């Protein structure tokens, strides 16, 4: 047998450890660190679409071809054409321009609800995880109750008190999605709190406040950034579901849920009124998911 003096450490990141799981038979190790730099096509597509969404949200005039409110009584329910890319609705309004103009509110609902939901979740989830046995028990029960409670009722309360507006939907949906996230935050904070680096920081005699601010919260909440983006898509879907049940934004708002609800009676004769806004919701939710997963995997890759 020939002795080969050539020595090439194959896995720099893993070299020097033998404990735990034996090295995976395929070299997941070395590539992973570099993978995140290579952005998949799907993420590119999602990125471009997200850019369009943001443009539509902040400067709808740039993308819209028509006044979203302008009615044309002569041509209701016109099929998609060169003039009206997505056809017209029951008032002869240009559906494409309405979807573009509806982006602001829909995204606001998505972002807002996700922010409210995740915000509540962060506060109460961390509180439950760090606040001791009582806080954990009380908040844990509250989360249970919220889980068991139909979101529909909550939505109704808010709408009855504040009227059907974007803010109302944000509150209702935010509260609806909060318990799930709160549980995640709680678990996350608990696991970070038990982590080696938190113990290490405590061993150095750092003040608990500093440990909380420097280690526990940042590390527990970082994965939530991805979750937040996923929540955006979910919130838009939820909000449009509420619109479907008659708890939507007041007309003539072109909020997507409202468009979906308005398009429902015309599904056979004017399919575009239902299908296209639905695709917009789906594409947005999917975009948020794809970007969220990408962010998540990037963050994980960094770890």
């Amino acid at each position, binding site marked *: 047998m020939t002795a080969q003096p050539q020595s090439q450490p194959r896995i720099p990141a893993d070299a020097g450890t033998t404990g735990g799981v034996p090295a995976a038979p395929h070299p997941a190790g070395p590539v992973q660190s570099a993978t995140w730099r290579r952005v998949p096509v799907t993420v590119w597509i999602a990125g471009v679409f997200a850019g369009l969404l943001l443009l539509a949200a902040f400067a709808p005039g740039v993308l819209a071809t028509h006044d979203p409110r302008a009615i044309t009584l*002569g041509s*209701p329910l016109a099929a998609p054409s060169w003039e009206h890319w997505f056809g017209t609705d029951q008032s002869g309004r240009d559906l494409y321009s309405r979807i573009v103009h509806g982006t602001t509110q829909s995204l606001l609902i998505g972002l807002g609800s996700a922010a409210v939901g995740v915000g509540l979740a962060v506060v109460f989830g961390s509180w439950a995880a760090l606040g001791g046995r009582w806080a954990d028990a009380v908040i844990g029960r509250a989360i249970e109750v919220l889980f068991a409670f139909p979101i529909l009722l909550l939505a109704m309360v808010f*709408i009855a008190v504040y009227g059907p507006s974007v803010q109302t939907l944000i509150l209702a949906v935010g509260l609806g999605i909060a318990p799930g996230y709160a549980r995640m935050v709680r678990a996350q904070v608990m696991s970070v709190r038990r982590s080696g680096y938190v113990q290490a920081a405590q061993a150095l005699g750092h003040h608990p406040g500093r440990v909380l601010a420097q280690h526990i919260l940042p590390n527990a909440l970082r994965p939530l950034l991805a979750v937040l983006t996923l929540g955006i898509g979910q919130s838009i879907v939820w909000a449009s579901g509420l619109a479907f049940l*008659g708890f939507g934004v*007041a007309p003539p708002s072109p909020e997507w849920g409202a468009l979906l609800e308005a398009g*429902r*009676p015309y599904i*056979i004769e004017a399919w575009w009124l239902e299908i296209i806004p639905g695709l917009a919701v789906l594409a947005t939710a999917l975009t948020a998911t794809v970007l969220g997963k990408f962010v998540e995997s990037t963050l994980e890759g960094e770890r």
Partner: protein
Amino acid sequence: MNTPPSPNAPENRPVSAWQTATTTASSRARRRPGALTAGIALAVGSALVLSACSSGTAGPQEQAALTGSATEPVQGGVLEYGHLQEPNCIFGGWIQENFTARQVLDNLVSATEDGSVVPWIATDWEVSEDQLVWTLTLRDDVHFTDGTPLDAEAVAYNFDYWMDGGNGTAAAHLGGFYDHSEVVDADTVEIHLSAPFAPFLSTLSQSYFGLQSPTALQTRTVEENCTEPIGSGPFTVKDWKRGEYIEFERNEDYDWAPENARHQGPAYLEGIRWNIVPDGTSRYGSLLAGEMDAIGEVPAVNIAEARQRYDFTQYITPGRPVVINLNTERGIFTDQAVRQALSHATDREANIESAFLGTVPFEPSGYLSQSTPGYDADAAQQYPFDLEKANELLDGAGWTGRAEDGTRIKDGQRLQVKIVYGLNTIVTPDGNTAIQNFQEQARAAGFDIELRPLTPSENFSGAYSTPDSYDGSVGYWTSPHAGILNINYRPSTEEAPNGANTTFLDNEEVFTTIQQALQAPTDAEVTATFSEAQYQLSELAPAIGLYTQTNTLAVSDRVSGLWLEPAQGGPIFHDAHFTSEEARDSSQGFSAANAENEG
């Protein structure tokens, strides 16, 4: 649902139908010409029913049935009917409850297409000189399905029951006029009124005034009387699977159909399954797929096709059409000129034509629908689309400034108004389109309209019914006669509040005119005085007409003989029958609850 249908002695069928009809024809009293036979009314074809029978069979057949044609309709079978909304009770004050009550309960009189009434349980009637006492003569052969007789005693009991909380809407119609009832003999009852009320009989033709067995009302629980009221009608409630369907079963003893029924004797059908299908697409789709034999409330977008494919009937509800009621007590609309300006400001006709795809008539009047007896077409036309006029009026009212978005401004205040409406309860999706069109069109004149759709809870709880909660509200109110004006425009007073006055109009002149009309001795005077009231209202412009409330019915060619009754537009199944034995045999019948949905 697990008890098999009991054969109700079909031999016992009384056959005095035609006799009743003849009696009625010769009856005296205050019956208008043209009410003699429903057949004539049908042949004349009033504005009430816009019937399009592509099959070309239904119309003649109905007449054939009426004139006693030799061809005997197919007996039996359970008809599948798809309906929009589910009632809370079979009988009640809600219009949906009238549709079901009409299958189970009989009324004293039956309305015809021209707004007159024909005998039903009451074969004859007479009113005193002072118009305060109505004497009704009743059939002597009618009994409720619990076996108790429908006699004068029962009628008197029912009057008291309706007025005393048994039916809120009945009380709203007759409450200010009814005093008491007196039983003269078994077949005669006197109704004493506190004030003359010309449209008395027409009022009684609505199913709010359906007759129930006093024994049942007294001895059974509220729940039983809600889900299975005992009447004398052509059907009884067999089963009610809430959220899914109500099953009605033929009353084998039935032999007292109203004079304008297409036939006498028990119903041809073994029964009806009244399916609740809230979604329009599903409802129409279920007709297309053959799951339903007939459906109500055909979505506007399907009407054109339904006219081609099915026996399609559209019924225009009399009473107050769908209008925007303007708040005359508070806010911007206290100024009559502003109300008039808004009435002129939009092209409502084009709006309705577009929003309903030409399937529902535009109603220019804010007070009565065109199918209401006493409707004045000229008074209705006072506010054609005239943007210039609207602008002039607003300029004159001091709304001369303009904000950046075009909204008019007066003393720093924007011409901004809030219009509330119960979406999907009062206003259909198509109506919602029309309201949005209205909103958009009114921008040209400088109105900034905020639309506030209400959830049913908000809508009915009264939170949006007070003067300070809206500038405009959208609503309609069915009524077979112009007396609805009294309900809607009687000023609200401390002693006698009138929540139905949703414009909060407090105008002595209008009120007086309406009272005169109600008490006018002749039809001509009634009509003339109601005309005057409509002109007066029109000038005040407290409401803006949009479209007529319509009921529609599409019937597949498997069944025939289905019609919409004229008082409220409910479907009548008593005369309905399958067109062939194959069609009947392919129907699922009862007791198939578990094995259904094969097709």
